Structure formats: structure tokens, C-alpha cells
């Protein structure tokens, strides 16, 4: 229809949404040109180092700072005695503080590795050495090292998490097939490769912070409240993040200390945690334990599940790792009872690590389903299909979309599951015992409002801006694709700015909600800008297209009269004719989420606006099925993965290449969880012994087999504006049980505690 040369295309969907495109930030990252928070050059910066407690409980009696203060280059020593309190900030869930003050350094010690002092010096080396010169005297008190410590007890019940559906006790008692097993997961740590840290600089009462952030607005709010300055006076800058996995969503004590030191010294302060410090400076995944009782018919139809679980929390805080989140909804289950306790121990308050709740929940359930499959002699995949839930058994609502059956079918087909023989130890290659295992996973669709600015410039460039962040997942790329689709321009013509709290608002990049909410916000803003362009083109006296038609199409960056009434006009040419340098539209999706503009600050700076998956008429979730092959050396018991096939339904994929990459990343993290990772806690000092990346084992490339990822999703109109469901956290859910089930199939040995190591199989 247009006389234009077709724009060069890659993939089969142009440069718009759905195109399989590489990350637009990829080249800058691999060439070292992308500037991360701690890379930012700031003139006159001083260096801060934090000091952590070496006892698990008690009090700091004194800190002798004389030698440290006298050490070369030292500018400031902060201790509980010398550090002024800040104002308490409201919580990330939006609750007001319970106390007026916040002290980032306290005398009271609640866990080993709690920050107790900070030293600021001219150089990092000077600060590090001076920190080692502090002499700390403690009054030690008894501690609880972990939930297996006899002193830990049973913990505290958590009534709001309790679920009673039907009569699980009765149904279990009467079930023809019953099995009971306990499943355990250790403390696991996020360990992004970019270390935690920040640079803080004050100019008058304005605070600029360069800090990696999964939540610019939330963290800026916390800093503003701590220092009693308006939100607008804090500028947080985080263009790139070297991985977060839940650990970079909140402002933390070391951030408060750096900002405080910068204010006290009147110069910028840079603080980077060491790798060992990152094991206790913020929370990782809580250790969990759950007993599952499954009652079923002889054919393997579930009659009842009783779940009794607990997770570790800190002695002064509440972290819930909801163990029923998958158990409650994965299968058609008439009778379900779940109770969970929280066990306070002397640890930093645990926090979110990829798929908090769903991950350990699925480990228990999906291992137990495999055990049930063997108890009744039914193929594990057939057993799952036999218990398929046609609607959400917990909420009673229909699924928005649930292509789990399709995922099972596609994964099984690609893997060759039909050739599997049931008996453990039935597959071998020489000295290797081969095991095939499978498991399902799910993650809920969470929805929050977002805001974006879209701007069209006179040279035809389209700009997109929002304070949302790209953790390395591809936000820059899919938001560019969103705008490219609306204006029908190539990706190279779109510029995206993210990760700056001075830009339009965005909620937390967590809960796998970012892609869905931000494509919606950018699409809305872009359409508004496009409408304004078309309106001006048709009505402005200076427009060459004035009055030529009732409407105009936008194709390949041109305004196109529908029946060729006039030649297509480049967008840039229209702006030039109008004497404008830009058209811009700022739009939010508050109203779609039932929120008014008055809710705005709260909506973006707390998670109180996040809608749960069953808010509305449907129950909305992403789904996946993992099929894995392991090889276990018959004599040496070493476990190696040989291949993994994962099929998943995350609705529409905005960029399949990047979505698949995220699923693969989740799977790799799941490999670590299954076979390698776990905090080793010394029972006497409640200290993480393996607090470095040589001893806390993450998968290396040699541990990662061929991974095939298959999308079976279709657009879900209820889940998000453009049809996608959550991707980021889905991939890890179900990986560990699939591997555990494969190890059982290889060896006949059922290991119910992660990680599964050689020592477990000897």
C-alpha cells in the first residue's frame, strides 16, 4: 500500500512485540561500556567499609576505635555510640513504622554478620585496614543457630496461612494409598555477580544515590523517609543491574550508613560490600521444612493432602516463605489442610529469592507426587494428568489460561518421555545410572500499575522513559519493541531510558510483573502520542495532511492516508512542518488497576497496590513442566545433568529469545538449588561458613547441560494489557524436584533434602 521500501526486518514479527531480537543493551554490556552503579565516577569520593558482628546474639559492649581512627586516611568511624539515629521509614508493604527512629547500627546483636560499625577513609584499602583495627567487646547471649537447633522449638503458628479445605484428616485416614514424607530446603543465597553497594552524594538537602535497584521508587522513598527529605529530593540512578534475584529491591542498612557518612563528611561516599558480607547484609531464601501426607485412590487420584511446614525467620522480624502456594492449587484436590510455623533463629531476616514460596512449595509437592506415582505404579506424567485441575481448587475461580496439559505434551514429546521405563535403575550406560525425572511448576500473575513517557522527536526518533529497571532480563529491549510496534519503526529508531527515579513512576521489578505492566504502560503512552500525532496531522493548519482523510495509519514511521489520498508523510516531517521539536505523552495504568491518582505515591513506592492472582474473575498463573536426565556414576555417586527440556505457558511472549533466556536462567539456578547450594551454618557461632563463591557452589558452565525451552503459551487477555503472564520466576519452580525425581529414577534412592550430593548417595 505504501511506496516505501520495506524496513529491514529481523525475525518474523518485525521489530515489534513478539520479535525474537537480541538485547539492545547487550553490546554495551559485553564490551564493558555499560556503567553499573559502582562504576560511576564521582569526584572526591571517600570509601566506606562496614564491619559485621562475629557473635550471633548479645550486645556490643564497647568498640575501641582509637587505632582505627588514627590509621592513615581515616575520615570517620561510625559505631552504635557515634551514629545519630535516622527517622524510621514505612515498610515496603506500606505499613507505617512502629518506632520513630531507625538505627542502622545497634548495640543489640541478633545475628552473626550484623553490621556494627563502618569506617570511611580516603581509599578502600585504608578503610579496609582501619576496619580490621576496631576492637569490639561483646556481651554474648545464647543463640539459636537454625531451625534444627534444639533450642529453636516448633516456632510460632501463622494462622493467616492456614488452609482447611474439605476434611483432609478424615479423607487421609480413609485413603487406600497413603504416604508421608518430610522435605527440606536449606538457606540459599541470591548471589548476583554484581556486588551490593552504592555511591551517595549530597548537594544541600538533595541526595543522589547510584545504586543497583529493582525498585527505584521504593528505595528512593525509604531514603527520603530516613533522612526526612521530600521524595523528590532523592534521585536514585540505576541504569544497569548485574542480577538481583530479589536481593536488590530494598534500601538496606549499609545504604543508610553510606548516605549518613556522606552527609556527615560533606563529600560523596562509596560503599561496596565484600562477597562474604553479602551473605548476611540482607536476607536470602529462608530454610524450610515440610511434612506432606498424601492420600490417594489406588489409581492415584488425590483425595487429601495434609501439609505441616515451617520456615526460618529472624528473632525480630517476620519472613513468610509460603509453603502452600503451589500445593493449594496445582492439582484437583478436594481435601487440603495446611499449617505453617515460623521459627525465629539468629539470622538476618530472610527475604525474597526467585519464586519465594512457590519454589520450596513445589519441591515438596512435586517430589511427593513422584513418590505417589511409584506407590501406585503409575507413570509420573500420567499421574499428574489424572489429577489435572480444571479450575483453581482453592479460589474456585476458572483459570484465565492454563496450558499446562500442552506443556506436559510438548515437553514429553521433545524429551522422549514415552520411552521411559518406570523401574529405578532400569536405564544405564556402562558405569552410569541414567535417571529421567519430571515435575511441574507454576508462578502467579501479579499486577501493579506503571507509568511511562513516550516522546516522538523531529528526527523521527521515539523515546521511552520510566523508572522501571532492567535487571539484565531485557526490559530495555521489550519496551523499545512495544514503542516500535505502535509507531511501526525499526528498533534502532527507539531510545529507552530506565532506572532513574526522576523518570515516570514504576513499581517493584519483582513478582515477575515488570514485563506485563510496563509493556502496558508504554503501549498506552505510545498510543496516546500516536493519536495526538494523527490528530495534529489531520487538523493543524500547518500539516501537509490536513483534511486529506478522516483518519491516518502509522506505518514504517510514516503517517499514511488510508486510500492513498496523499503520499505518506514521515513523522519527523510532520513535526518540522508543525514547528514542534516533540510530541509526548505521559500515561499511567492506575485506573486499570482500580487506583486513583491520589493513590499514586503509595502505588509506586509500596507493594500495597499489587493485585493478587485471584483478584477479579479469574485465577491467573504461569505454568511449566520440566523433564530432566541425570547420570549418576554407579560407584562414585557423582551426579551430572545430561539434558533438560522445559515447556512453559507464560502467555504471550514479548520477545521469545529473551523470555526463553530467562527461563533458562531460572533452570540453571534450579540446578544449583538441586545439587550444589546451601548455607553451611556453624552451630556454635550461627555463622555462614561457606560465605564465598569458592565454597558456596553455584553451577559452572560445566554443570549446565543442553537446555531446550518450548513456549506453549497463548495471549492471556486477563493477565496483562498485551497478553503476557509472568516469566522471570517461573523457570526455577519445579527444577529441583524434577532433578530429585531423576536421581531417584537413576538410583532408587529418594533424597528429600536439598542439595542432593554424592554424600547422600553413598
Amino acid at each position, binding site marked *: 500500500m505504501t511506496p516505501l521500501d520495506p524496513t529491514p526486518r529481523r525475525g518474523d514479527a518485525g521489530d515489534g512485540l513478539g520479535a525474537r531480537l537480541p538485547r539492545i543493551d547487550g553490546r554495551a554490556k559485553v564490551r564493558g561500556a555499560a556503567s553499573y552503579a559502582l562504576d560511576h565516577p564521582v569526584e572526591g569520593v571517600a570509601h566506606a567499609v562496614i564491619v559485621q558482628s*562475629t557473635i550471633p546474639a548479645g550486645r556490643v559492649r564497647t568498640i575501641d576505635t582509637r587505632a582505627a581512627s588514627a590509621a*592513615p586516611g581515616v575520615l570517620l568511624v561510625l559505631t552504635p555510640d557515634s551514629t545519630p539515629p535516622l527517622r524510621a521509614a514505612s515498610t515496603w508493604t506500606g505499613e507505617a513504622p512502629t518506632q520513630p527512629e531507625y538505627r542502622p547500627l545497634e548495640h543489640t546483636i541478633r545475628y*552473626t554478620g550484623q553490621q556494627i560499625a563502618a569506617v570511611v577513609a580516603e581509599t578502600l*584499602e585504608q578503610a*579496609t*585496614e582501619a576496619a*580490621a583495627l576496631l576492637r569490639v567487646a561483646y556481651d554474648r547471649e545464647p543463640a539459636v543457630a537454625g531451625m534444627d537447633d534444639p533450642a529453636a522449638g516448633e516456632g510460632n503458628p501463622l494462622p493467616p496461612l492456614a488452609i482447611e479445605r474439605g476434611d483432609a484428616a478424615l479423607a487421609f485416614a480413609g485413603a487406600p494409598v497413603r504416604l508421608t514424607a518430610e522435605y527440606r530446603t536449606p538457606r540459599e543465597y541470591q548471589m548476583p555477580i554484581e556486588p551490593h553497594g552504592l555511591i551517595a552524594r549530597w548537594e544541600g538537602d538533595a541526595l543522589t544515590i547510584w545504586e543497583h535497584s529493582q525498585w527505584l521508587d521504593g528505595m528512593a522513598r525509604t531514603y527520603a523517609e530516613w533522612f526526612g527529605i521530600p521524595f523528590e529530593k532523592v534521585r536514585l540512578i540505576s541504569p544497569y543491574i548485574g542480577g538481583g534475584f530479589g536481593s536488590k529491591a530494598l534500601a538496606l542498612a549499609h545504604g543508610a550508613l553510606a548516605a549518613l557518612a556522606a552527609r556527615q563528611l560533606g563529600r560523596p561516599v562509596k560503599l561496596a560490600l*565484600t562477597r*562474604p558480607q553479602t551473605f548476611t547484609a540482607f536476607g536470602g531464601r529462608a530454610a524450610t521444612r515440610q511434612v506432606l501426607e498424601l492420600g490417594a485412590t489406588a489409581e492415584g487420584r488425590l483425595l487429601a493432602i495434609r501439609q505441616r511446614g515451617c520456615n526460618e525467620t529472624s528473632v525480630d522480624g517476620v519472613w513468610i516463605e509460603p509453603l502452600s502456594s503451589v500445593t493449594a492449587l496445582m492439582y484437583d484436590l478436594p481435601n487440603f489442610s495446611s499449617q505453617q510455623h515460623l521459627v525465629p533463629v539468629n539470622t538476618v531476616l530472610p527475604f525474597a529469592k526467585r519464586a519465594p514460596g512457590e519454589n520450596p512449595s513445589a519441591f515438596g509437592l512435586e517430589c511427593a507426587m513422584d513418590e505417589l506415582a511409584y506407590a501406585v505404579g503409575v507413570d509420573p506424567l500420567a499421574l499428574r494428568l489424572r489429577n489435572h485441575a480444571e479450575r483453581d481448587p482453592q479460589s474456585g475461580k476458572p483459570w484465565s489460561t492454563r496450558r499446562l496439559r500442552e506443556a506436559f505434551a510438548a515437553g514429553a514429546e521433545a524429551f522422549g518421555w514415552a520411552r521411559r521405563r518406570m523401574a529405578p535403575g532400569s536405564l544405564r550406560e556402562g558405569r552410569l545410572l541414567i535417571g529421567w525425572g519430571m515435575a511441574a511448576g507454576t508462578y502467579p500473575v501479579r499486577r501493579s500499575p506503571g507509568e511511562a513517557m513516550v516522546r516522538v522527536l523531529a528526527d523521527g526518533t521515539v523515546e521511552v522513559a520510566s523508572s522501571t529497571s532492567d535487571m539484565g532480563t531485557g526490559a530495555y529491549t521489550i519496551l523499545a519493541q512495544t514503542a516500535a510496534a505502535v509507531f511501526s519503526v525499526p528498533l534502532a529508531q527507539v531510545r529507552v531510558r530506565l532506572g532513574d527515579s526522576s523518570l515516570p513512576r514504576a513499581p517493584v521489578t519483582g513478582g515477575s510483573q515488570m514485563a506485563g505492566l510496563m509493556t502496558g504502560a508504554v503501549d498506552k503512552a505510545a498510543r496516546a502520542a500516536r493519536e495526538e500525532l494523527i490528530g495534529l496531522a489531520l487538523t493543524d493548519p500547518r500539516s501537509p495532511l490536513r483534511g486529506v482523510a478522516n483518519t491516518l495509519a502509522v506505518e514504517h514511521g510514516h503517517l499514511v492516508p488510508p486510500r492513498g489520498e496523499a503520499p505518506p508523510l514521515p513523522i519527523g516531517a510532520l513535526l518540522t512542518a508543525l514547528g514542534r521539536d516533540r510530541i509526548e505523552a505521559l500515561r499511567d495504568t492506575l485506573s486499570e488497576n482500580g487506583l486513583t491518582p491520589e493513590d499514586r505515591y503509595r502505588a509506586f513506592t509500596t507493594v500495597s497496590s499489587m493485585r493478587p492472582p485471584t483478584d477479579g474473575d479469574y485465577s491467573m498463573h504461569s505454568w511449566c513442566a520440566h523433564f530432566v536426565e541425570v547420570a549418576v556414576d554407579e*560407584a*562414585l*555417586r*557423582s*551426579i*551430572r545433568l545430561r539434558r533438560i527440556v522445559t515447556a512453559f505457558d507464560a502467555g504471550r511472549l514479548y520477545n521469545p529469545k529473551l523470555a526463553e533466556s530467562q527461563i533458562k536462567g531460572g533452570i540453571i539456578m534450579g540446578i544449583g538449588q538441586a*545439587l*550444589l547450594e546451601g548455607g*553451611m*551454618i*556453624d*552451630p*556454635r*557461632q550461627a*555463622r555462614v*561458613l*561457606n560465605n564465598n563463591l*569458592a*565454597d558456596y*557452589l553455584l*553451577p*559452572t*558452565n*560445566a*554443570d549446565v547441560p543442553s537446555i531446550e525451552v518450548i513456549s506453549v503459551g497463548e495471549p492471556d487477555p486477563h493477565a496483562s494489557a498485551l497478553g503476557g503472564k509472568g516469566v522471570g520466576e517461573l523457570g526455577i519452580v519445579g527444577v529441583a524436584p524434577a532433578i530429585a525425581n531423576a536421581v531417584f529414577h537413576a538410583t532408587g534412592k529418594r533424597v528429600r533434602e536439598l*542439595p542432593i*550430593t*554424592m*554424600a547422600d548417595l*553413598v
Partner: protein
Amino acid sequence: MKAFSYHRASGLEAARQQAATTDAAILAGGTTLLDLAKCEVARPEQVIDITRLPGLDEITVDAQGLRLGALARMARVAEDAAVRTAFPAVAQALSLSASAQIRNMATIGGNLLQRTRCAYFRDPASFPACNRRTPGSGCAALDGITTNHALLGTSEACIATYPGDLAVALVALDAIIHLGERQVAATDFFLLPGTTPEREFALAPGEIITAVTLPASRAARRSTYLKLRDRASYEFATVSVAAGLELDAECRVATLRVALGGVATIPWRARAVEAALTGREPTPEAVREACLLAMQGATPRPDNRHKLELAPRLVARAIETLLWEERA
């Protein structure tokens, strides 16, 4: 990190004199030194850089054997074709060590002197008790988590595992450690902790490893290094085995060399296994029986009992591998 003075050694003799002072550390590859300085275990006053000293990084293989200059990088030795042919256990031990990045920096001499990975040794602030670090202070590991601690060669004073791979191959293949003029057998170079765990190596103050030599032999040519671990790469050994084998004309075992890593306070020569098979026909039963002697005298701890099972099996796997190669 404590400030130190840096000296670039002008020659070996000058380096020896500088290194003879207390609180001096030799900088060769720096990979262990930096690591230990970061965790406050190494706090040298003087750092003596020997990396520029000429003539210490050569790799020579001839009819007599192998000579590795102390400053030869691990990666270079691992990739050396002659080493791989004549001393496969050495090349394999090096390629299975550490990470590619570390192997590119670390040197042969420095690698032999790496310190234990005992978590209690590496954390002075939290665990002041460590006889290896501070003589007489006690041992925090004895009542701690001991998954990675030693079963062989332990004492009441110390149960820390020697972490390296190369040294296991050297001890198996009767290497000589050259300290300038003085020479020490590899089997004598690593010291049992006994009551003096702070003395880890047979090194006098100021002595510097200059080279390692290994005699050529058929057992060295027919040798292998196996490393068992949960992670496929970049992990210290759960158990490792260096083995060399020579069969006589009647296909009996003429020479067998076996050493173990990951299970002992020093690279552990398993002489009982060697003796049990030497002169015998290596039938599967004979091999299995002999390998059961590998952990003779072991003192397991609650967290490392699995090594009692795994070590003999890995020794058997190594011998089977060599027999299979020999017969192929």
C-alpha cells in the same frame, strides 16, 4: 588490607634474604596471597615480588624426566604436549585445578604452597582458635562442620585438609622439590600437623622453591589423575587420586604409585595399596581388595564418613583406567 612494602627482587639470593625476615611473603602468582590477605589470614609487612626473576619459568621434558620452573604458570604446564604425554597425571591435575582464570595466573611453586580451605582457618575474626594460624590457640574445626576436613594424617591439633591437586600427582610420582641447591622429596616436603600444624612445609626461613623435577618412568607415562567433586568444575576435591602403573612382561604389577587428595592433611601416598598389588596380577578382585587399604588408619568425622567409601572406589577407578589403557 594491611599496608605492606613491595620489593621487586633483583635476584634469587636477594629475594631469599628479603624473604627470610618474619612477616615477608613471596609474590609469585598472587592468587593465594591476595585471597588470604582479603580474609586477614595473610598480613605481610613485606611482599617480595619474584615474578620478574629470569629463568624460573621453564618447562623441560627429556629422557631423564620433567623439570618445571617454579614460576611456570599452571595453565602453560597443563597444556604442554610433552608433559601431557610423559606425565599425564601432572597435566590432568593442573587442568582440574581452580578455574581457568586462576590457572592463567598461578605458578607451580605457589600452587604447592597454597594453604588449607578450612573455613575456620580462613576466618580469624569469628574463630580465633586455630593452631595452624595461631599456635596453641586450639582448633575450632574439631567440633565444627567437618564435611571438607581430613580423615588421614590428622592430629588433636589440626584436621585441616591439604587442598591442592598438583602436589598429589607429585607425591605419587616421586617428585623432588628444589629449593635452590637443597632438594627435598615431595613426600617429605609436606609436613603432618602433629603438634606443630603451623609448620606446613619443609622450608627454612628464606627458602624459595625454584623448580620441581620428576624422574621419567613408565609408571609416570602411564599415569592419571581423577578428581571427584559435586560441582563439575572449580571445586576442591572431595577425593582425588593420582596413580601411575607399570606392568611387567607377565602382566603383573611391576610398579604402582598411588596418592590421595582431599582426604588428608598432606598429599597422601597410599603405600599400602601399592604394596598389596605390586608383584601381583591385577585381577578385579585383587584391585578391589588392595584399594580397600587406601583409607587405612583413617579417622572419620560425622560429616565426612562418605569419603571412607568414595576414596577406595576412586583409587580402583584410577587403576582400572590405567589397566584399560595399558591393555588397549
